[in-house]
C-alpha cells in the first residue's frame, strides 16, 4: 500500500468514505513510513503511533456504523509542535517546554478532530518559530528531502511540516506563519501552503511568536487539500478575539479549474526582479501559463514594501520578547543561540518605534489593497532562492549579496505585515533538482480565489506531483 502515502487528503477521504480503504490501513502506512524515514529527515518531534491507531480504529467503527464526520474522516495529518494537543507534549521545538503537556487542544486541532482527521504526531520546527531556516538545536535539524547528498534546510519555521508532507510521512499539516513560516518551507520543499487572512483562522492554543503577525494555515501537496483543511479550521472563535465572524465558504466549490478573466498582477520591483535567475524565470513562466489559460496578467510595483523589513523586525522582536521575557530572565541559556540573540533585539525597540512600525502597516496595507482593486491576485516568488545548504550564510540576489536568512523571509513577510492571504505552490525545479515556489496574494478574506488559481495551475502542471529522491 505504498501509494497510500502519496494519495491526497481529498482522495483518502473519498476512499475511506466508500470503504475502498480502511483508516487503519491509511494510518499504518504513514506510521510505517515515519518509522523508515524519519531518523534521517527529523520531521517529527513526537510520534503518536498508539493514539493514531486507536483513533483510526474508532473512525473505522464509526464508518461501519454509518457515521462519517466529513471529507476528512479517518484522514491522518500532523501539526507543527506549537499547537496544543491534549495529553500530548507541545514543545514549541524548545528545551524550555520539553515536558509541557497541554490540558486541551488548540481550537484548530479540535476542529480537525471534529472533522474526523487523525493526528500522527507533532512536527519539528525552528525553536519557538523564530527562524526561517527551520533549525533546531534540541531535536535536530529537519532535512530537506529533495537532496540526498547535501544536507539542505527545509525552510522554516515549519520545517517538519515541509519535510513530512514532501516526503509522504503525512498528507497534510498545519504550520504557522509570522514572516513566511508556511510559505518558505512550502517553497523549499515543493509543497502547497496557505497563509490565510489575519483573523480568518483562530490562533487560540497556538504558541505565539508575535501576536499581530502570526497566522495559522494548512500545508499540503495540493490546493484542494489546503481548501479542505482551511474549510475545517476557519471561522470565528470566541477564544481568539481577532477572529472574524464573516461566514466561511466551502472553499472546494471555488476550485473550478477555470482562470479565464482572473486578473493577475506580477509583482516586479522588490519581488520577482530580486529573485535568483532560475526562480525569476520559473515565476515568469507560471505567469505566462496562467495567461495562456485565460488569465489577464499585468505587472505591478509596490514601493512601500521596501520599508517592511525593519518595521516587521521591530514588531516581531518586541512582541516575541514580551512573550518570552520571564524565561529570558532566568532560562536564557536554554534557548538555542540564534533565537536567544533575536529575542534580545526586542529590548532595544522603544514604544514609539514599535508604534511607528504599526503605523507603517496601514500604509503598506493600503498600497496592496490598491493594487488589488483592479486585480484579483498578485503573483511573486515565495522565496527568491531554492533551499540553501545547512550552514550557508550568504547568497546572491538580483540586487546584490544578501544574508541567507534575510533572503528567505524577504518576499513573504510583507503579507504577514499587511495581513493579506497568500498561498505558495511549486512552480518548477532548478537544474540541480531543487523545487521553487511562487506565492499568490489575494484580497482580504478571499482565500477562495487564491486557492482557485493555484488549483487551476496545478491542473496545468505536474510540479506538485513530483516525489523527492529521499522518498
Amino acid at each position, binding site marked *: 500500500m505504498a501509494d497510500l502515502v502519496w494519495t491526497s487528503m481529498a482522495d483518502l477521504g473519498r476512499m475511506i468514505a466508500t470503504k475502498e480503504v480502511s483508516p487503519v490501513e491509511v494510518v499504518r502506512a504513514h506510521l510505517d513510513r515515519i518509522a523508515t524515514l524519519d531518523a534521517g529527515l527529523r520531521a517529527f518531534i513526537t510520534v503518536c503511533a498508539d493514539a493514531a491507531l486507536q483513533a483510526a480504529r474508532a473512525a473505522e467503527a464509526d464508518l461501519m456504523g454509518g457515521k462519517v464526520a466529513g471529507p476528512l474522516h479517518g484522514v491522518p495529518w500532523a501539526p507543527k509542535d506549537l499547537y496544543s494537543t491534549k495529553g500530548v507534549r507541545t514543545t514549541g521545538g524548545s528545551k524550555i517546554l520539553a515536558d509541557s503537556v497541554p490540558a486541551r487542544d488548540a481550537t484548530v486541532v479540535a476542529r480537525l478532530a471534529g472533522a474526523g482527521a487523525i493526528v500522527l504526531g507533532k512536527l519539528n520546527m525552528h525553536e519557538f518559530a523564530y527562524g526561517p531556516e527551520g533549525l533546531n538545536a534540541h531535536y535536530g535539524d529537519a532535512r530537506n528531502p529533495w537532496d540526498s547528498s547535501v544536507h539542505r534546510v527545509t525552510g522554516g519555521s515549519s520545517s517538519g511540516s515541509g519535510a513530512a508532507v514532501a516526503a509522504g510521512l503525512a498528507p497534510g499539516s498545519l504550520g504557522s506563519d509570522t514572516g513566511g513560516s508556511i510559505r518558505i518551507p512550502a517553497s523549499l520543499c515543493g509543497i502547497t501552503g496557505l497563509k490565510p487572512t489575519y483573523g480568518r483562522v483562530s490562533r487560540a492554543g497556538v504558541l505565539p511568536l508575535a501576536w499581530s503577525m502570526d497566522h495559522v494555515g494548512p500545508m499540503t501537496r495540493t490546493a484542494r487539500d489546503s481548501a479542505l483543511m482551511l474549510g475545517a479550521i476557519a471561522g470565528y472563535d470566541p477564544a481568539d478575539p481577532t477572529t472574524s465572524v464573516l461566514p466561511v465558504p466551502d472553499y472546494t466549490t471555488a476550485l473550478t479549474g477555470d482562470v479565464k478573466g482572473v486578473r493577475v498582477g506580477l509583482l516586479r520591483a522588490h519581488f520577482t526582479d530580486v529573485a535568483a535567475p532560475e526562480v525569476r524565470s520559473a515565476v515568469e513562466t507560471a505567469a505566462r501559463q496562467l495567461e495562456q489559460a485565460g488569465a489577464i496578467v499585468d505587472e505591478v510595483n509596490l514601493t512601500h514594501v521596501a520599508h517592511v523589513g525593519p518595521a516587521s523586525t521591530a514588531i516581531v522582536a518586541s512582541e516575541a520578547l514580551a512573550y518570552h521575557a520571564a524565561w529570558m530572565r532566568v532560562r536564557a541559556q536554554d534557548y538555542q543561540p540564534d533565537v536567544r*540573540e533575536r529575542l534580545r533585539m526586542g529590548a532595544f525597540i522603544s514604544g514609539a518605534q514599535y508604534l511607528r512600525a504599526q*503605523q507603517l502597516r496601514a500604509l503598506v496595507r493600503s498600497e496592496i489593497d490598491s493594487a488589488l482593486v483592479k486585480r484579483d491576485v498578485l503573483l511573486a516568488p515565495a522565496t527568491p532562492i531554492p533551499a540553501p545548504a545547512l550552514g550557508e550564510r550568504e547568497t546572491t540576489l538580483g540586487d546584490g549579496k544578501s544574508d541567507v536568512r534575510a533572503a528567505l523571509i524577504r518576499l513573504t513577510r510583507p503579507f504577514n505585515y499587511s495581513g493579506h492571504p497568500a498561498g505558495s505552490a511549486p512552480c518548477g525545479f532548478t537544474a540541480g533538482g531543487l523545487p521553487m515556489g511562487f506565492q499568490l496574494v489575494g484580497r482580504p478574506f478571499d482565500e477562495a480565489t487564491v486557492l482557485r488559481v493555484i488549483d487551476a495551475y496545478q491542473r496545468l502542471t505536474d510540479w506538485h506531483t513530483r516525489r523527492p529522491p529521499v522518498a
Partner: protein
Amino acid sequence: MLAPMEIGLEGMKRMAAAGGFAWTDAELEPIRPAVERLLDALDRLESLPLEDLEPTTQYRVL
C-alpha cells in the same frame, strides 16, 4: 545621508536593565551591529508620511 546610528554597550546594558534583563558585555556585543542597523533603519521611517495613520494590527471586519 545620515551618519549610522551608534549604540554603546553601556547604553545597551541600561536599556536591557530597564526591561529587567541583566545581560553582560559578552552577550550584547555580538548583537550590537544588528541593533545599530535596525535602529538606523527605523530612524529612516520618520521621513515617511505616517502622521495621519493610526497604528494598525488587524482587519476590522465583523
